[in-house]
């Protein structure tokens, strides 16, 4: 790559030592940025410079760097993952920016996502939502043949659309209400669409929604900003399906207390 193509960028990056201390935006300047670099590689370069200067590196979450693990999580210029269609932070490339640009980089912020350090946040609330019922109770060894229950292709495809969620939390970060409805809706919808998931759909939906509400997430007011920033393009139709499932479950699901004794 010729030097003529490289860029100089001004960064304003959120630095916060730990959850207890106050954070602030710190200015950095990165030179010789190649347009073929990924955004995270640009931060890597900056971090290498910081080490040489004896400063603490910028902490950010990342892992697969190919847009599937859901670990990376930055608000780039006010948009989750930079706001490019179907793109995670790790897939943002510097050719999307211009020489001399000033880019603000902040962590995903929400009450339910406390900051750990710099750009790293704690998203364990998502695991808690899944724990509340985001599964099908099918212990190993129970399964019948994979083709025993037929699933129409459009249904399987719709379930896959929802299942594509990578749990990155962009929906929460970009939602003006800090709500996790898209994350939760995608899982509830996926499992409600599949015949294997329907036996426990009602209980699952009730438990997950009630858990969501206790974790400090907000309420959906249909801004649909989640859908717009979701790197997997998950539609808020899945939230609607969850709402449907929830109403149905509330007014129909009934489980008597029975003793399970036997001889």
């Amino acid at each position, binding site marked *: 790559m010729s030097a003529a193509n490289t860029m100089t960028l001004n960064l*304003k990056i*959120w630095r916060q030592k730990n959850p207890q201390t106050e954070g602030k*935006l710190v200015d950095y300047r990165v030179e010789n940025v190649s347009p073929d670099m990924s955004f995270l590689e640009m931060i890597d370069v900056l971090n290498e410079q910081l080490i040489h200067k004896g400063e603490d590196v910028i902490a950010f979450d990342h892992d697969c760097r190919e847009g599937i693990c859901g670990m990376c999580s930055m*608000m780039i*210029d*006010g*948009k989750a993952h930079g*706001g490019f269609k179907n793109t995670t932070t790790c897939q943002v490339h510097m050719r999307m920016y211009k020489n001399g640009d000033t880019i*603000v980089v*902040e962590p995903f*912020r*929400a*009450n*339910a996502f406390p900051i750990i350090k710099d750009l790293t946040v704690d998203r364990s609330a998502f695991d808690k939502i899944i724990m509340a019922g985001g599964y099908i109770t099918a212990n190993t060894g129970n399964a019948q043949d994979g083709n025993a229950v037929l699933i129409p292709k459009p249904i399987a495809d719709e379930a896959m659309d929802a299942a594509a969620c990578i749990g990155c939390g962009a929906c929460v970060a*970009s*939602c*003006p*209400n*800090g*709500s996790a*409805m898209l994350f939760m809706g995608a899982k509830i919808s996926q499992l409600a669409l599949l015949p294997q998931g329907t036996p426990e759909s009602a209980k699952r939906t*009730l438990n997950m*929604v*009630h858990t*969501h*509400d206790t974790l*400090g*997430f*907000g*309420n*959906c*007011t*249909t*801004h*649909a*900003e*989640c*859908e*717009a*920033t979701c790197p997997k393009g998950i*539609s*808020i*139709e899945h*939230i*609607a*399906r*969850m*709402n*449907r*499932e*929830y*109403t149905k*479950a*509330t*007014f129909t*699901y*009934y*489980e008597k207390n029975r003793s399970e004794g036997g001889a």
Partner: protein
Amino acid sequence: MMTSAVNHYFCSSIGRKQLVAVTGLLLCGFLISHLLGNLLLLAGPDVFNIYAHKLVSMGPLIYLAEVGLTGIFLVHLGLAIKLNIENLKARGGKQRYYKKTNTGHGTTFMSQTMPLTGLVLLVFIILHLLNLKFGSYYPTTVAGVEMRDLYRTTMEYFQNIGNAIWYSFAMVCAAIHTAHGFGSAFQSLGLNHGKYFKHVKRLGYLYAVLVGGGFAFLSIWAHMKGV
């Protein structure tokens, strides 16, 4: 389990949202009937006054309707305020991001201003009741029946340019509020289906323009016409 699930419903994010949605849609229905009634202003004082008189002569029914409407309104208002306070907290306080930009494909001006337009409407409704329902009482006689000349009260009210502008402004807010609220209510109730939803949204916009525009038109018309 059943009772607890139903109890939970009224505390849960989705349950309360659905109550806001249902009450919102009921209020939308009320607005249509209100607008249709108001359009009778165009037919002249007698027709309008007879209509108004008919309504208030319904006896207990009208009180029931008023109580019901007030209840619906208070539920809508109360839950919306509660949900908004929770949301403000959930997103991590007021100053959340140093820089936050909307993508342009999600959040709209309409969705963002819901609490504001809602508050404008609240103030409007209070003033509206004071100025008109509980406003100046002029007796009149139409076809031998003594009744209130609500037509005169209304037309007098709109002669004040300030009143006419405020009323029109409030109705623009109502249009903005319902333009988002209508579609959002269907989404909250789980009635977003890929096949139909874009029509529902369009219907919402149509509703907003017709109802908001209709009321605003009447206020301007009344101002221009004079007493």
